[in-house]
């Protein structure tokens, strides 16, 4: 249960909201780099934290992200002409550079300097890995550029996708740290998904349906450990890291690539679910990459030409009751990503957390909300920068390992849970 005012505090991210200010402390994924594939390519619209923005890549390859609407009479610059080092509004020809500066107002004499009075709100857009990142907060407080491992390994080792999810970011993110649903919702996929199946660890999952949880606070967020019985009284541990505000990783299986997510608010009723897959030490195979493109694992299929999942609420996510009956799929929905998204969207745009009946195994979620609340109030009341902005907090990995019963995972797996360049993930 969460009181109404706390639920509002954590879920509202428009400008001038406390949680909105907190998201504006970080570099967040804004676009796939492939959405702006070349200089002077068509601009693209993106909404982030309640702000409607236009992104473009100018003639010199500089990325711009700014207010979508022309300062003259409010036309969407998506209709603009991207040419000669700027984006020109097609209505009366006002032109903007990649920093939102108006550089030309054709109706006014050039010498008047009128255009210098016009500037659209603009944010930096930088390419790290396959992603264009933005920081929507004050320039003076700009954190170091992102160094997440999935974005910094060589291109052939990593793959990222994004999809539109039609609910608030927090309930989507909470799914990423809700380890207790995996034994139910995704049970069918462990056997069939090409990016999951065949790992030795899967047997421990199948044999022990009642995992025990250990939630450990970390400087940048949390580690959520799920423990199942292995051989000889040993424990099979799966550790999910969460880094504030909304980065989660799934514990790996065998030598499969490891995956995780960013959950980024579009507005209070929608979010971007970013999903990545990477291997720290080898290239993804052709089959693996194709499986990701085909929507397996944490990825999904699309309505052509959009980032909306092919399975969505207008078609009941292509629910297959027969597959559910046959035991192939616990919920009847195809694919891990949409199994999660369908249920999270079913909660409504912002779930009413006053009606929840949480149990002790929900402690990962309870702790994450507690940490977010503390960070958001410390920022609001004292200006304290929140955790998760710095490289040391971002150097995390998920891990899976069999340990003797008397070893706390947080000590025994310290190295496994840390990025070690050139060292393979710890996995079973």
């Amino acid at each position: 249960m969460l009181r109404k005012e706390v639920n509002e505090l954590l879920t509202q991210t428009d400008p001038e909201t406390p949680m909105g200010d907190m998201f504006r402390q970080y570099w967040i994924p804004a676009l796939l780099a492939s959405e702006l594939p070349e200089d002077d390519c068509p601009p693209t619209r993106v909404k982030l934290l309640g702000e409607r923005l236009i992104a473009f890549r100018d003639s010199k390859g500089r990325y711009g992200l700014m207010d979508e609407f022309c300062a003259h009479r409010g036309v969407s610059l998506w209709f603009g002409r991207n040419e000669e080092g700027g984006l020109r509004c097609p209505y009366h020809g006002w032109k903007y550079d990649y920093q939102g500066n108006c550089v030309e107002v054709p109706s006014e004499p050039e010498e008047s300097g009128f255009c210098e009075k016009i500037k659209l709100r603009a944010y930096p857009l930088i390419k790290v890995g396959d992603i264009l990142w933005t920081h929507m907060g004050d320039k003076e407080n700009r954190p170091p550029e992102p160094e997440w491992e999935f974005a910094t390994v060589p291109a052939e080792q990593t793959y990222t996708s994004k999809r539109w999810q039609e609910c608030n970011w927090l309930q989507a993110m909470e799914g990423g740290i809700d380890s207790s649903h995996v034994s139910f919702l995704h049970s069918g996929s462990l056997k069939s998904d090409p990016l999951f199946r065949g790992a030795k660890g899967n047997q421990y999952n199948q044999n022990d349906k009642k995992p025990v949880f250990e939630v450990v606070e970390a400087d940048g967020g949390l580690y959520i450990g799920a423990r199942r019985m292995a051989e000889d009284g040993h424990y099979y541990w799966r550790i999910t890291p969460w880094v504030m505000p909304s980065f989660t990783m799934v514990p790996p299986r065998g030598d499969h690539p490891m995956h995780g997510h960013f959950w980024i608010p579009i507005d209070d009723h929608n979010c971007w679910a970013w999903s990545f897959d990477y291997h720290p030490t080898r290239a993804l195979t052709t089959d693996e990459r194709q499986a990701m493109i085909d929507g397996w694992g944490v990825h999904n299929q699309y309505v052509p030409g959009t980032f909306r999942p092919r399975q969505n609420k207008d078609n009941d996510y292509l629910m297959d009751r027969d597959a559910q009956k046959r035991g192939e799929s616990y919920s009847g929905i195809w694919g891990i990503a949409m199994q999660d998204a369908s249920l999270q969207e079913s909660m409504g745009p912002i779930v009413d957390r006053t009606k929840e009946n949480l149990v002790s195994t929900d402690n990962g979620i309870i702790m994450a909300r507690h940490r977010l609340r503390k960070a958001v109030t410390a920022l609001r009341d004292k200006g304290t920068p929140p955790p998760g902005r710095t490289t040391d907090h971002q150097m995390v990995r998920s891990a899976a390992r069999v340990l003797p019963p008397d070893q706390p995972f947080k000590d025994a797996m310290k190295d496994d849970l840390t990025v070690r360049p050139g060292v393979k993930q710890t996995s079973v």
Partner: protein
Amino acid sequence: MAGLHDLFFDPNHPTLLSGCARAATAEEAAFRVQYPNSTTRSSRIFALDPAAAEAMYAITEDPWNNAHFLTVTATGVTASTRADDLPLCHPDGSAATLESEIRDADVVVLLATTGDSEGAAEVIARECFNRNIMCAGLALGGGQDQPGVDRVVNSMRRFARVLVVANDTDYIPAMLTALRA
């Protein structure tokens, strides 16, 4: 584009918008009937050592639903101490017995700050395990007395379904509120 029609047209799911459970607007999707969906739980919170008791006493006066706050009063409890012999008291100092406290409990939470209470943790957690009561352990001060906290965590690990290692005592009320204690 022929494929799209096959994809989206499903004769079993005519689109009737608000005529079915697929809410058509955000308001509709967010709406919940305000009937209660649960009855009051009985939560029992045990502070296993003096520092844990101090942290617990800071919040026992808050309005809780049906939570009982208990303190293990003697040190020297070992894993072989009988459940009946576990020395417990209420916040007002009156004595309590483990049996009467957990007989009707739905949720048990153990609070510990040091490793000195291994024995008591085990006695209570074992009793919960035998009675099929969900037992959660909360080790406080993850940053400080590290070896001590590890000892508590290790002792509870065999019995508790959930263990939390929290840095600050402010997690106690946060967790109890979330659990409707």
